[in-house]
């Protein structure tokens, strides 16, 4: 009962947060200061449009996922205290107005999610995932702490408002160092390549409603931090920062979706895909920084609005997909897609929700993913107004990367939905799975509805996002976005009318019916087995698997995946022509772990081994160290 009550409380808190957030987005601002609550500056919360947007995102996501969690609550295992701390911290982070408030909320968010990741602590893989997550998130925290304290030391204040006022007077070296530290910290949380290693381990290990919040909201707060740093705390960004973010976004998008494409684990596929989407968001953010530097405020606004829109959209469809995956994993008892299939018959609700989420995440019209990808494309397409061929080339490459990502994303979700839900069940458990409970369906329904509404209502959403993005890019006007039916971009460069698209698709759906009626077509149909070259029985062994589906990609991008082929044949002792058992595996290797993390960790280990020599165990030696240190310090003064 305790867990269910906590989730119900989280639903209420989420709704409250969403209310405050939307009010903030629409223009309400306030500041709360409680000096005594937090050391070094007190608790300080400020609501502005950008904070309001992210708070609303946290609120809506929390409410719907908690609703779902009521349906899956496991009183014996769930950790409601950690969950409440997690969602509470998620809500405080965007509101925080000074460094201490921010860092404490940030760390509570990390620690609480770490406890939630440790869901099945009897499982070695989960423990490793939690360990990697703890190390990476604290490395990120160290960067943030160092960056914020350095900035505090140079500006004499830990309040964010003072930072943006003092930023133009900072020495360039200090400003760059601080940016690098903060960007590393935030990018680590956002899961930007190559700081992503924790994400595909930790997100799948957590219970699905927590995965939904981690992927949908928590990593967005990393992007939120990057926006605050790049546009506000450190003032207008130099060109290089924008280019770095843009390229990091493009690389993350492509690499994330490439890994998602070949992963047979449904939840890990979704986690890799989050890296892809954060990449798309950062393409918008980086583009906005470059446009702002070039003085093209209207374009900067467009790019940042595209980024924020995609952040909101991704929170909705990724949460929907994670919740759907949770229902599937709950029903089948495994995360491997190779044991799924045919679930559309056993789980029609979940299948419908997952299909809608897949269409939205693949960016297909008229759903929300299409609108934000369209906006991002339009922002990139207008790069010709930057009069610098080198920059133009960067934008063209980002455009190509985004297009490749979109194509691979569609392929990835054909696989995710098709292998999981269609054809025959590949395991006995998949043939017996039950659909989600009513509370779970309701949670998914909220997100599904959000995907549809954010797609059709983009003419209302975009101006609202413009209010949040406007102050960041220094645009004097909130920008002209066309009217209620049509989005019109700067000077008629492009137009989009989502309601018209939806209407056209609706009418288009009638067209085949009209055609069939007019031609007097026979609508009779007869059911029979799938044609199979004359063999006797149709079984799930004849279906394409997730691995097989991804094989063309594995071959095309061989240079990236570096797959290892393991083929093991057990032959009959009498003759090697009678094969008794074949074991085949073709896993991709992670070049980031092999080429980046392994050497760094090896270096770290040998450095530690060297340092260990100092640790002689003799008290006199330690006293001597203290004496020498003191002496050195005195001399240096």
């Amino acid at each position, binding site marked *: 009962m305790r867990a269910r009550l906590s989730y119900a409380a989280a639903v209420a808190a989420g709704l409250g947060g969403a209310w405050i957030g939307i009010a903030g987005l629409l223009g309400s601002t306030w500041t709360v200061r409680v000096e005594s609550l937090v050391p070094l500056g007190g608790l300080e919360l400020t609501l502005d449009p950008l904070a309001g947007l992210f708070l609303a995102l946290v609120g809506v996501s929390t409410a719907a996922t908690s609703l779902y969690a009521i349906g899956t609550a496991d009183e014996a295992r769930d950790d409601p205290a950690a969950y409440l701390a997690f969602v509470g911290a998620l809500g405080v982070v965007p509101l925080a107005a000074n460094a201490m408030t921010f860092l404490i909320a940030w760390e509570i968010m990390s620690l609480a999610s770490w406890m939630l990741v440790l869901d099945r602590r009897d499982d070695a893989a989960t423990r490793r995932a939690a360990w990697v997550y703890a190390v990476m998130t604290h490395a990120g925290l160290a960067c943030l702490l160092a960056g914020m304290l350095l900035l505090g030391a140079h500006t004499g204040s830990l309040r964010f408002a003072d930072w943006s006022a003092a930023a133009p007077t900072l020495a360039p070296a200090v400003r760059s160092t601080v940016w690098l530290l903060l960007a590393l910290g935030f990018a680590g949380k956002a899961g930007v390549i190559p700081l992503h290693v924790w994400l595909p381990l930790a997100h799948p290990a957590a219970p699905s409603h927590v995965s939904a919040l981690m992927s949908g909201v928590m990593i967005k707060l990393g992007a939120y931090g990057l926006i605050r740093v790049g546009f506000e705390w450190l003032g207008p960004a130099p060109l290089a920062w924008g280019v770095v973010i843009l390229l990091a976004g493009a690389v993350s998008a492509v690499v994330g979706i490439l890994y998602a494409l070949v992963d047979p684990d449904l939840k890990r596929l979704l986690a890799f895909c989050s890296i892809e989407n954060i990449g798309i968001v950062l393409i918008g953010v980086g583009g906005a920084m470059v446009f702002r530097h070039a003085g093209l405020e209207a374009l900067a606004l467009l790019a940042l609005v595209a980024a924020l829109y995609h952040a909101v959209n991704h929170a909705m469809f990724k949460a929907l997909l994670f919740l759907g995956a949770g229902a599937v994993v709950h029903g089948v008892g495994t995360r491997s897609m190779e044991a799924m*299939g045919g679930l559309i*018959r056993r789980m029609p609700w979940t299948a419908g929700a997952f299909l809608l989420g897949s269409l939205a995440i*693949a960016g*297909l*019209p008229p759903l929300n993913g299409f609108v934000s990808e*369209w906006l991002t494309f339009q922002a990139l*397409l207008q790069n*010709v107004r930057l009069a610098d*061929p080198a920059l133009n*080339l960067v934008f*063209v490459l980002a*455009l*190509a*990367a985004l*297009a*490749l990502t*979109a194509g691979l994303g*569609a*392929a990835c*979700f*054909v696989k995710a*939905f*098709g292998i999981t839900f*269609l*054809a*025959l069940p590949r395991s006995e458990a998949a043939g017996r799975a039950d659909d989600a409970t009513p509370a779970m369906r309701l949670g998914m329904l909220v997100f599904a509805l959000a995907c549809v509404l954010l797609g059709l209502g983009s003419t209302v959403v975009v101006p609202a996002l413009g209010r949040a993005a406007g102050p960041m890019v220094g645009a004097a006007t909130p920008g002209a976005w066309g009217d209620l039916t049509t989005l019109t971009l700067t000077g*008629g460069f*492009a*137009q*989009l*009318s989502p309601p*018209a*698209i939806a209407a*056209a*698709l609706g009418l*288009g*759906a009638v*067209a*085949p*019916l009209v*055609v*069939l009626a007019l*031609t007097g077509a*026979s609508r*009779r149909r*007869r*059911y*029979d087995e*799938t*044609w199979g070259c004359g063999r006797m029985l*149709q079984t799930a062994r*004849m*279906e*394409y698997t997730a691995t*097989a*589906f*991804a094989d*063309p*990609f594995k071959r*095309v991008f061989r240079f990236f995946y570096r797959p290892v082929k393991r083929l093991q044949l057990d032959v009959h002792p009498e003759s090697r022509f009678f094969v008794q058992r074949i074991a085949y595996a073709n896993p991709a290797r992670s070049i980031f772990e092999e080429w980046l993390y392994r050497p760094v960790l090896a270096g770290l280990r040998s450095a530690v081994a060297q340092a260990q020599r100092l640790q002689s165990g003799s008290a006199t030696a330690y006293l001597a160290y203290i004496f020498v240190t003191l002496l050195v310090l005195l001399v240096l003064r």
Partner: protein
Amino acid sequence: MTAEVVLAVLQVLVVAAGAPLLVGALRTLQARLVGRRGPRVLQPYADLAKLLRKEAVVSTTTSWVFRATPYVLFSTMVVAALIVPLLLARPALDFAGLVLLVYLFVLGTFFLALAGLDAGSAFGGMGSSRAVAVAALAEPTIMVAILALALRAGTTNLGGIVERFAREPLLAANPGHLLAFSAFFIVMLAETGRLPVDNPATHLELTMIHEAMVLEYSGHYLALVEWAASMKLFLFMTLLVNLFLPWGMPATAAPLAILVGLLVFAAKLAVLTVALAVLETSVAKLRLFRVPELLAGSFALALLSVLSVFLLQ
């Protein structure tokens, strides 16, 4: 408004009615080029009529996704037919640009690939996997080619691009434009399953892409799928001739102007059809894993086209 709706419906009818003719003409031409007599030009209509009359056999393994896909596919092509510039330089319903068109085609491919998986046969899965691979790899070329057009025309609205090029022919008469055209042409071959990427005439399991995906369809479902596939070819070729050679398109909706425009369009389309037939009879199908090289080549062409704009501006 009424005139616009009438024109839009008329345009959809032109596409839907013309698409089987285009496929028939292509097949007959190819047969003649290799010295066969080949089927009648109007054969695809007879095929469609036959399929529409027949009873459909549906696999017991499939779900509603399989049965819904032909309708979705046909609908996406109808919507695409609404917004391409065909009868008028500025399409009657100009509510979205090139980017939407690309995504509409992806929507169709997405559902078709799901349907391929739904029957649970290895053929379907193989076709789906290959089809999405080719479509995904063609995507960057399409976007960069769109950029090449948008850069010169200053908009991604289809009508805007056509009007701009029709007004200033010099814009189109440069090598960058030709590069973008070539890139788009290769993408068309990949997207519509033509040689050397896919062979629309084969049922050999090793080489099938599109045919493997739709292997389980029959009756009116197959009719809709085939019809939609021919409309996709028609739409791609329309885009090629009208975006890259936008001359002779009427700017106003006068009946005579539209009739003349339609004749000019038919002539342009005929030239491209002959070119496609000659190409298809003179190349062999590429091995599947050589297709990425072809698409990488088309990407390079599109990139060069864009860079030429930046360097010459």
